[in-house]
Structure formats: C-alpha cells, structure tokens
C-alpha cells in the first residue's frame, strides 16, 4: 500500500528521516498496518540546507530584488541628471568651474561620477530595474515558449517532435551572440525587441530540457497508471508532468537567468542593447571605458554589480542542485 502511494510522487523525495541521511529507513512502512486514508498525500520535502556562501548569496539576491523595487525611489539623483559644478567646488580653492566627470567617490556622489558627470550610484540603482527587469521578463518568456513547445514535442507524436527538434537544433548550433547580432542588425534594438529576441533565443535551450523531462515522465509508471485510469491529456500535463518538472526546472531557471543577464549586458556593452540615456549596467561599462586609463572606478562599479548578482545566483543554484544529488547539474551541462 505505502509503495503504491509513494510511486505517484517523485521517487527522489524520501519520507521524513529526521536529520540522518539513512534513506532505507522508511517510517511510513512502519505505520503500514494503519488505514490507507491516514497516509499523507505526499511525503514532506527534505529541507534544503544552505552553505554559508549560499546564505550570503541569498542576502545579495534579496538586496538586488529590493533595489529593483525601491532603487529609483532612494537614488540621490535622477539617472539622467548632470551634477552641478557648484557641488564639486573645493572649499578655499578659487576655481569656480571644477571638473564634474570621472570624479572619485565623495560625499556628493558616493560612488563617484561617470563620463558626463552623472552620479554613478543613482545610475546603478536605476539600472538595476532596467537590467534585472529585462532579464527576468526575457527568462519568463523563454520558459513560457520553451516549456510549452517542449511538452508539445514530448506528447505530440513523432512528426511534430522531429520538426520542432530540427529547428531547435539549428538555433542551438548558432552562438547566441551571433543570433543577437544578426537580428539587431536587421531590425534595430528597442527594449521590446530585446526582450523578444532574448526570450526566443533562450527558449531553445529550455525547450531541449523540457522535452527531455517530458519524454522521461511520459514513459513513467505513474503516467501509465493515469492513462489506464482514463485521465485526459490536460489532466496528465497539469497533474503529472508539470509538478514533476518544477523542481529540476527551477534550478535551471536560475542558471538560465544568469546567462540572460550576461547576454543582455554583453549586447548593451557592445552598444546594441539598451540605448542611452536609459541606464543599464552593461552600457554603463561601455560608456565609461574611456575613464579606465585615468583609474576611474565608473566602469568597474556596474561590472561588479553584475558580478555580485550572477555569482550569488550561481551559488544558490549550486546549493540547490547539491541537495538534489548533483544529478541535475550533470543533466544541464
């Protein structure tokens, strides 16, 4: 009896075993004599234990999430504001027109100023919303398209599957940056185009994983059982396929999100992504590159902002996939 009820859930999840990692001890089997309806619907999940690095990483991600919401509100200046020369007059000096560009950090601009004399901190805070917002929407779009087509390929028969897979292979066999460059050269770059383009490019890798999981789940015993019971195809998608895909796909979502951030900042860095005067971390690095020879920190700050976010996400993903036995990580390379 307990065997049957366990098999309808993910085989990876073991019954609660306290803090020990013995997985052959099955407390549910011990209670086997009790009535069938007293068994829980699904065994409670094992809690993910995060390493210290993972906990710090979660703090970093939470910080940037807050900045996406409140960044522009707490920014000392507007992203497009040129700081007034009067702010930089050194007391006692008789120069009424001091330089405002590439200023080092000070009480006026906590992270210094950029090549046009704008406040770097404010631009980072505004840019958080642009960069993270665009990347997040693109990743969701990639998942929407990729998972839908992936499940269609997994259940839709050989012809549909091979057409979708061939086209997908062709897209995957181009470097992502090349696809980006080709499309942007033809239709230019606005934020909606950028989101659509990134979403579709990354949908192809999501498709591959979703299809693989879909095919795996479709031949499993519990789907067969559902079919024998006479469940419809929508029921099977909604109650068997999707719930069994969520955990592994969630870690992939994190990785994919990192790739999307790097892709979009890369395009912006090439001057082909988010266009000025809107601030975006990738284009901020590009604009301020000319200050590098003078040791200005303006190009380094946005690059470090990207790095903190992407490293943090990767560390969380590492912890989560270690929790699921590392099998996922191998699957996702």
């Amino acid at each position, binding site marked *: 009896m307990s065997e049957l009820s366990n098999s309808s859930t993910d085989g990876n999840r073991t019954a609660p075993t306290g803090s020990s990692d013995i997985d052959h001890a099955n407390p549910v089997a011990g209670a086997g004599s009790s009535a069938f309806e007293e068994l829980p619907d699904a065994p409670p999940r094992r809690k993910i234990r995060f390493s210290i690095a993972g906990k710090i990483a979660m703090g970093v991600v939470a910080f940037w999430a807050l900045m996406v919401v409140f960044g522009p509100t707490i920014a000392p200046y507007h992203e497009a504001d040129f700081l007034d020369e009067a702010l930089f007059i050194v007391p006692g000096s008789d120069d009424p027109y001091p330089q405002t560009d590439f200023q080092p950090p000070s009480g006026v601009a906590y992270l210094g100023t950029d090549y046009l004399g704008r406040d770097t901190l404010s631009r980072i805070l505004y840019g958080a919303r642009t960069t993270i917002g665009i990347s997040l929407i693109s990743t969701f779009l990639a998942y929407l398209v990729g998972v839908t087509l992936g499940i269609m390929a997994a259940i839709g028969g050989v012809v549909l599957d091979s057409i979708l897979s*061939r*086209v997908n*292979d*062709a*897209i995957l*066999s*181009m*470097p*992502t*940056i*090349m*696809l980006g*460059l*080709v*499309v*942007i*050269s*033809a*239709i*230019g770059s606005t934020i909606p185009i950028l989101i659509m383009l990134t979403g579709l490019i990354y949908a192809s890798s999501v498709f591959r994983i979703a299809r693989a999981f879909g095919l795996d789940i479709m031949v499993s015993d519990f789907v067969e059982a559902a079919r024998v019971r006479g469940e419809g195809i929508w029921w099977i998608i909604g109650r068997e396929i999707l719930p069994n895909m969520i955990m592994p796909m969630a870690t992939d979502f994190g990785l994919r999100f*990192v790739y999307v951030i*790097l892709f979009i*900042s*890369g395009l912006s*860095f*090439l*001057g*082909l992504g988010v266009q000025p005067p809107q601030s975006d971390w*990738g284009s901020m*690095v590009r604009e301020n*590159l000319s200050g*590098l*020879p*003078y*040791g200005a920190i303006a*190009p*380094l700050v946005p*690059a*470090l902002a*990207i*790095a903190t976010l*992407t*490293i943090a*996400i*990767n*560390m969380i993903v*590492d912890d989560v996939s270690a929790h699921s036995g590392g099998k996922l990580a*191998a699957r996702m*390379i």
Partner: protein
Amino acid sequence: MLMAAVLRRTAVGILTMLLVSILIFIGTSVLPGDVANIILGQMATPESLAELRSKLGLDRPAYIRYFMWLGDMATGDLGISKAGSGAATIGTPISELIAPRLTNTLRMTAIVAIIAIPLSLSLGLLAAMYPGSRLDRAITFTTLGLISVPEFLVATFLVLVLAVHMDLLPATAYISGRETGLKLLKALALPTLTLVIVASSQIMRMTRATVLNVLSSPYIEMAILKGVPRKRIILRHALFNAVGPIVNVIALNLAYLVSGVVIVETVFSYPGLAKLMVDAVQTRDLPLVQACAMIFCATYILLIFIADMASILSNPRLRHPK
C-alpha cells in the same frame, strides 16, 4: 559501422549548416529595412529605389535570392560591402575586408588555445585527483566566480591592474599589421590573457567533472578493490577513458569562445573579425554581417562536430544509435 556513424554525423552537420544559413538569411533579408533603403537614405525616391533594387536583385522572390546568395558564398564570392563602415569602404569586396581581420582573430585564438588547453587540463586533472582538498576547493570556487562574471569585467579589471596601475602593457590592442616581435606580443597580451582566463575556467570545471565521473565508474572501483596503486589507476585505467570526453570538452569550449572574442575585441579595439562584425551591425551593413555570421557559425558547427566525433571515437556504444 564506424564509417556509417561518421558519415551520418557529417550529413547532419551539413544539414545544420544549411538550416543556419537559412536562419541568417531570414534574419537579415526578410525583415523590414532593405539594403537599397540604407544606401540611398535621405535621397531615396520611389524610382531610384526601384532601380537600385533591380540592380541588386532585391526585386526577386526571397527564395531565389537565398539560392543566389548561397551559390555566391559557396564559390567564395562574399559580395560587396553595401553600407560600408565609412565612405572609403563602400563598394569594397567583402572578402578583401575580411581576410586581414580573419588572420588577426585566428592568430589571437590560436595563442589562447595553446596556452589555455594545457594549463586548464592539468589544473582540472589535479582538482579531480584530490577532490575536496584545499587545492580543489580553491579551483572550483575561483572558476565558478570567473564563469559567472561577464567577460568585460575580467577585461576591465586586467586593464586597470596591468595597464593603468602597473603600466606594464598597453590598454588597447590596436595593431596596424606592420608590428613585429615584442611590440606585437605586448599588444596581444591583454586580450589573450582575458580570453585565456575565461576559456580556462570553463575547461577546468568540465575536465574536473569528466574525470570525477570516470573515477566513480564501477571498473575504477574494481581496480581500487583489487589493490592497483593510485598512480596506475589514474594513468592506465582512468586517463584513456577520459580522453574522448576531454577532447569533447576542449572543442566545445573553443566554440563557446566565440562570444568571448566578440566582447574582448571590442574592449581592446583589436582589429579582428568580431570587431568588424560589430561595426557592421552598427552601420547596418547587412551583407557584411551575413558573411561574418556565416564564418563564425561555420567554425562553431565544425568545432561541435569535432566534439561529437571525439565522443563517438572514444565510446563505441555511441556508434550504434538506438
């Protein structure tokens, strides 16, 4: 059987290349905004547009233009740069623009491969031989950090330290083609170093994972249980079985290097093929973009093909696809 598997993969490779060429063609030709418009710009009148379009063959159906373009490309005629990146380059044959740039890019990536491959293989192997050791943890932690930051962070950081603060190397890698010896090496140093760091961390991680995977297989366990010395296990049992997957890893990572090359050539204004392509995208010189994209994608597919071959040759079970 081996022949059949190789032929099958070759056919798939050629088919993929054709599909990619269709994608590139659709991407640049069917979408709104054609070359005639760009060339004439403000001076466009309906008559002059129509005349130029028929001269360039733009008035024919898309599929005919595709085959004309493909035929030209196959015979080495890459067409003429139509928008031009500056007045002087309008009407220059694309092959003349590309040739010197391609040499520059190939020279840089060859140096990167020569340095990065032995370095990352040995470090990856070391990390895999002593998993959990301090060395292993240092390597995995550093490489995780390096692969999750953008290439331009590595590049700007290196410029700041090596060019600005220590004043050892030039901050840009502009070369005119006449430099030789030390001067050329100095100009190439920073872009090469950036790419070596980016590529090595990927190869190190994947080598480590591959070797660990081999080391956890039943026949290694068997060798340990029957008392084979550790050195002999690694050199006689594990290494031969890891060669195929490792060649696979190297080829894949050289393929991933494409996007790194695009960023690095831009950071250092290195006159390579990728810089040419980025400039062409900015001036919307579609024929030039098409030609560059085809070269990059063909290289990428070729490397992935090599990676595929390596795994087939090393694992007989892959020769008989189910």
